[in-house]
């Protein structure tokens, strides 16, 4: 149960966004641009940044949701485990590793990103836009994680919920679902 009365029975962030469509609109728009818009990073790579930040912020709902999305986009549980615990040995390009290091530094605090982290990413071929988007995705998930946990939002335990959510996030994306029935399906996970 969230700390405030919501106008719906949806879990996690989805219940918060549906409860306040005014503040949700720019957050959804920003997320859709960053995670699904035109980019030289794949959708899975961008979801990995969201997942590592959520994991480090210990936000269970967001970690489960974006881990399921990484898997739906072709990633594996093994890849996620290495990214969480042993990033340098993950089966990822040097560029992606260097961007995930930047994302992890942003999670700590903005000033933790040092010139050497940027140098490493640029040396591995990262463009300014890739670095920009990495920092902003990591910063955005510091918002989401705090919003979800700071409001005490409900976190379902059933893995089927996250598979259903991931199926939506890999098709419709982050725009507000127009189909009320899609929301009803997710509301049943109480």
């Amino acid at each position: 149960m969230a700390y405030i009365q919501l106008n719906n029975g949806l879990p996690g962030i989805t219940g918060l966004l549906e409860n306040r469509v005014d503040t949700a609109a720019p957050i959804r728009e920003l997320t859709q641009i960053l995670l699904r818009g035109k980019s030289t990073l794949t959708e899975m790579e961008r979801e990995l940044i969201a997942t590592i930040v959520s994991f480090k912020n210990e936000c269970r709902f967001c970690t489960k949701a974006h881990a399921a999305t990484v898997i739906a986009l072709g990633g594996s549980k093994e890849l996620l485990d290495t990214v969480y615990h042993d990033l340098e040995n993950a089966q990822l390009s040097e560029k992606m590793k260097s961007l995930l290091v930047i994302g992890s530094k942003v999670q700590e605090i903005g000033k933790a990103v040092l010139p050497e982290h940027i140098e490493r990413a640029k040396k591995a071929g990262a463009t300014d836009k890739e670095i920009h988007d990495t920092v902003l995705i990591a910063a955005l998930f510091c918002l989401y994680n705090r919003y979800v946990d700071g409001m005490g939002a409900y976190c379902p335990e059933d893995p089927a919920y996250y598979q259903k959510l991931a199926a939506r996030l890999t098709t419709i994306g982050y725009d507000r679902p127009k189909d009320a029935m899609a929301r009803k399906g997710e509301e049943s996970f109480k």
Partner: protein
Amino acid sequence: MAYIKVEEGIPGIRSLFKFSPETGKPLCDLAEVLLRGPSPLSSSERELIAAFVSNRNNCMFCMNSHAAAARFLFDEDKQVVDDLLKNQTADSLSPKMKALLWIAGKVQSNGKSVTPEDIENARKEGANDTDIHDTVLIAASFSMFNRYVDGLDSYTPANEEDYLEMGKRMGQKGYHI
């Protein structure tokens, strides 16, 4: 010099909006709805939450600019801003505002550190669901804005006076570019 190639001389987040206007638009929309949209909290109180969180995140650009906006909006009561940010005292604020700032401080460190007791305490001091929601989301949003500005090492003017005009403009015109 920022970590990415932005236009020289434009301070803080505005240089990033210019670098990436596509993401700048929803970021401005978010600041506008959170700090100027309908809320039981005044714009000055909401700017104070923004400055308080930015100060705790050590983001000097956001702290200085939102403190300047808060001073402009508090007008003759502007001393509360410096009491809170410089003298570390919230004594000039209402008990409700103190309880909400306590929650904002928790959100700044990590969402999970907010407890049911923190929420109960704010309710006891008169906060309703919308006060609590808006406080949590402003604190969460500035945990994003601060990281965006500092994570890319964007240009941060050094003196408080450099932010006077900026604060006035933010107070008068808000965040729509």
